[in-house]
């Protein structure tokens, strides 16, 4: 897989659930156009979606920056928002601070970070309470990822 150079910053509006998911859809489409392995594209799409939804659910505004080149995809999700008071707790399966509204829509399962960590080959989250949160992820090809290969995210 050799990805053509591409980078874009996708603005994400907090609370605009119906608009969210654009960065994830776009990166999946671009990876598909460039014949990236389906499993690779799926991992990138899932993790990007979760990061994008976190901005939408928790923050006032943010952006998801996608950078693609060669064999790697880098995704940075940065937001202006409440930040995370306890990262350890936030990374725990099932823990969520999502609003009631988000939960009735099926968000706030507390699985977002877990999905990102499982799908990304490098995952880092930094935060400042009252300022915002930044998630950085890198995706690299995994052995066995080819058309018809095994699913890496199971």
């Amino acid at each position, binding site marked *: 897989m050799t990805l053509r150079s591409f980078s874009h910053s996708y603005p994400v509006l907090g609370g605009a659930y119906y608009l969210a998911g654009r960065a994830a859809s776009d990166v999946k489409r671009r990876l598909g156009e460039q014949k990236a392995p389906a499993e690779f594209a*799926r991992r990138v799409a899932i993790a990007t*979606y979760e990061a994008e939804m976190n901005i939408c659910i928790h923050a006032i505004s943010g952006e998801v920056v996608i950078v693609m080149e060669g064999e790697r995809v880098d995704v940075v999700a940065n937001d202006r928002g409440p930040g995370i008071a306890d990262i350890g707790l936030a990374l725990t399966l099932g823990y969520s601070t999502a609003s009631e509204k988000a939960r009735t829509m*099926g*968000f706030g399962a507390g*699985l977002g970070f877990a999905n990102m960590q499982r799908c990304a080959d490098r995952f880092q989250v930094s935060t400042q309470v009252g300022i915002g949160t930044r998630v950085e992820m890198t995706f690299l090809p995994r052995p066995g990822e080819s058309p018809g290969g095994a699913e890496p995210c199971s």
Partner: protein
Amino acid sequence: MQLTEIARTLDLTARSGEQHLSRDVAGGCVSDLLSYAMANAHAGDVWITIQVHPNIVGVAELLDLTAVIVAGGQEPEKATLDKAKEQGIAILTSRETAFTLAGRLYELGVR
């Protein structure tokens, strides 16, 4: 098993993506938590949920699901159906509960 056969046997109503009913169904996933579906549904699955908002279309598109089945007589929002039509995602509805639909699908051999 093709989606058309499942739609007929379970008496599902196609609300969008009718042109894709001949797709194969690989398996199934039941959840009303989107992140759970993101973690566990596989390409080609049908996803049974009672969520009706447009983000279910996003999930179906990202995971290459064969269809979303909205259960329990829930009515997909207009924005959901518009987005589904635009993106070629099959959404079917049923008055049956998610439990019943899952059971009947499992009986049909969808595992």
